[in-house]
């Protein structure tokens, strides 16, 4: 017998369902998110609106509460898993329906470093914000980054590192870009737990991003600025 207090997602109004999805995302309830995404699709919602109004909005709350010390890494990962499940349904539909495109990013963890939790969150939130993302994965050499820049022609290069011993490799990549005269063609964003703004400036990145939400906002700002410059 169903619990009296059990929420039947399909019986909620659109506004109620969006709020419930944000709650479910916060609680990392993957199956509920998948069900709700399918309900909204059936009700005629555009994939873009489902993505931004339910998933991205919900994940933004998660990100803010993580920053404020209310949520911790396990809860953020569970929320991210739930969002990923929703995006898995939406992604092919977003391509079909032609959602707005913000720009393109190549992202990867630097050589000698296998940590990818933060990088994966950034990649997911960037996709959620309308960026096309090519994720190079972990342990990337300067050659691999440069090859991806050459073939993908992104607006942004994102580099991530978790270790004090690997974060200096970001400078190796940026210096190589300078040597080859490529640096000014790209927005370079860096992130990772031991980094800080000072380090980002010192190695010649455009910005250090302390979390995924900041990465999205910073990317939007820089891309808009770049486009404005091109239009001047």
């Amino acid at each position, binding site marked *: 017998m169903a619990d009296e207090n059990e929420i039947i997602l399909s019986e909620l109004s659109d506004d109620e369902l969006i709020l419930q999805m944000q709650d479910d995302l916060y609680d990392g309830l993957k199956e509920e998110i998948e069900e709700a995404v399918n309900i909204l699709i059936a009700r005629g919602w555009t994939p873009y609106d489902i993505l931004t109004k339910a998933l991205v909005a919900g994940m933004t709350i998660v990100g803010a509460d993580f920053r404020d010390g209310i949520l911790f890494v396990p809860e953020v990962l*569970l929320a991210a898993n739930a969002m990923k499940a929703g995006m898995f349904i939406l992604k092919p539909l977003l391509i079909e329906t032609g959602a707005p495109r913000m720009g393109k990013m190549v992202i990867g963890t630097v050589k000698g*470093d*296998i940590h*990818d939790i933060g990088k994966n969150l950034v990649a997911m939130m960037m996709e959620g914000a309308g960026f096309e993302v090519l994720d190079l994965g972990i342990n990337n050499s300067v050659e691999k980054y440069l090859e991806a820049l050459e073939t993908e022609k992104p607006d942004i290069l994102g580099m991530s590192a978790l270790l004090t*011993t690997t*974060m200096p490799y970001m400078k190796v990549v940026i210096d190589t870009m300078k040597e080859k005269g490529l640096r000014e063609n790209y927005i370079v964003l860096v992130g990772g737990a*031991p980094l800080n703004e000072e*380090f980002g400036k010192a190695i010649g990145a455009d910005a250090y991003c302390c979390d995924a939400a900041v990465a999205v906002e910073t990317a939007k700002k820089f891309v808009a600025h770049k486009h404005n410059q091109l239009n001047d």
Partner: protein
Amino acid sequence: MTLIASPDDTILTERGISLTQNGKILLIACGALAHEILALKQINGWDHLDLQCLPAKLHLWPNRIPAAVEAAVINHRNRYDRFFVVYADCGTGGLLQAKCAELGVEMIAGPHCYSFFEGTAIFAQKAKTEFTAFYLTDFLVRQFDTLIWRPLGLDRRPELRAMYFGNYTKLVYQAQLNDPALDTKARKCADRLGLTYERRLTGYGDLATVLATVG
């Protein structure tokens, strides 16, 4: 020589401990190093070194370490002329080094405690090929559930294990002591994380040689 009773691991993890006596120099150390520092003090008769341990759980938030070290130095400035910080960089991205420079105190070199137990120079060489290893020391084996398993939420959501440890291949237990019980426990930790197991008897490594120069 004055003997100090071995402190409780839970206290070292959660609250830290003050083990000050009549020394002239105060070591401000991570609680995870308390047993090893006390053992070295006892073996070498280093009564000139007093010990103030900060909670080992600060490693869950490395950005809080510099401020905690600073507070400990300020709290003890009226009692000690000299301090030595027994932390490596510990994920602070150079901020602890900068803080120590600002305070005019020295600290131990290297990225982590597991680098100076192995020997920082050797560890740096190995890091080029061994970056898929997850390291535990004696203290971390004993406090595995408190400092690793539960903070990562693996007690509640074991399915997160692949997200945390999917890119690791092996667990390296750096043994400071020859303790078969810790060996057994470390092997179980590796099993729980889904990693292969390797044990290395490092002893106290650079911790012993560095502390020998503090005087």
